[in-house]
């Protein structure tokens, strides 16, 4: 007599758990946009650390730490541009629709950024200011190239 009821409750629990799980996997567009903006901000801050160090005391550890942040954030950004997180998402974003119409180019920029950021991590360990400066510019170049095409100008 009690059995169907227990089954119903179990099914309900399973359903709620499944729904909860789905929510955890597919974050809302607003959350995704906020997450990638926070990552970009960390990257910008890390770029500034390197720039300031090169202009000042050139602290090797600080520069290496910042370079690692850039490389890690570059990787973290890759899954944060799913469809539906463009200007139509109802949240303020500078991401242009071109990201989703020209995805291959966008992904190419992302790959290039990761490669250049990894090189920056390597040279920052050497403490060679000239080499770090040159690689800093290479990383900056990939930021600029992608932004020119895929980010609204402010």
């Amino acid at each position, binding site marked *: 007599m009690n059995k169907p009821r227990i089954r119903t409750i179990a099914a309900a629990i399973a359903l709620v758990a499944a729904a909860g799980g789905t929510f955890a996997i597919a974050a809302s567009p607003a959350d995704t946009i906020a997450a990638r903006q926070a990552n*970009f*901000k960390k*990257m*910008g*801050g*890390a*770029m*500034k*650390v390197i*720039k*300031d*160090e*090169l*202009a*000042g*005391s*050139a602290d090797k550890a600080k520069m290496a730490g910042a370079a690692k942040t850039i490389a890690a954030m570059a990787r973290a950004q890759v899954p944060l541009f799913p469809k539906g997180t463009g200007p139509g998402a109802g949240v303020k974003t500078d991401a242009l629709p071109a990201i989703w119409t020209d995805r291959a180019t966008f992904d190419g920029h992302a790959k290039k950024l990761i490669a250049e950021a990894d090189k920056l991590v390597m040279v920052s360990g050497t403490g060679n*200011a*000239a080499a*770090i*400066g040159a690689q*800093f*510019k290479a990383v*900056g170049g990939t*930021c*600029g190239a992608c*932004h020119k095409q895929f980010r609204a100008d*402010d």
Partner: protein
Amino acid sequence: MTEKVRVWDVPVRLFHWSLLGLFTFSWWSGENHEMEWHRQSGLLIVALLLFRVFWGLAGSRTARFAQFVKWPGEVLAYARKASDEHATDGHNPLGGWSVAALLLVLLTLVTAGLFSVDVDGLESGPLAGFLSFDGGRAAAEIHEIAFKAALTLIGLHVCAIGYYQFLVGRDLIGPMITGRRDLEAGETVESVRWSPLRALIGLAVILALVWAISKGFQFASAGDV
């Protein structure tokens, strides 16, 4: 031939027209992301503005703040009888405040620019090293707001000049170029006098300061970025 009287000294006129040129160039270079040019141009504007502040204390009669920054009471009294005013050499009580406001806004604009950082942490003003990334981004916001305020004030300035030039029929643009205006019949006004030596000393000190600013007050840097 009508007699002329000198109403604007050379430094004021050089300041005015160089500022116009550099402001336009800064606008263009900023919009087009020519940031190296934008920084250079901005630093020159810093020098110009500092010189103008110095000249407001040390310049000729019409250049001095004491001559054109008046108490609100005087400005009101002037505004009430503005219809029958006579030509004032230098800035009139209302225009004086417009000049003071423009100077303040431009000083805010360039100071914020010195501390600004772009979103990528890639381009920054020479003093951005003294602020955090967030601080630098806030400076960039102020830079943007001050730019819009400056455009508004410049618009007002141009309208006021246009009003006098074409509706009142008083030539204000000519004297800002040549420094001189026609003397009216029976009028006795002394020409403005200024000291080139004083101007040079002020300019030298200001250029040294701006050079130090351009280096971010760090004279031994590890690398050039």
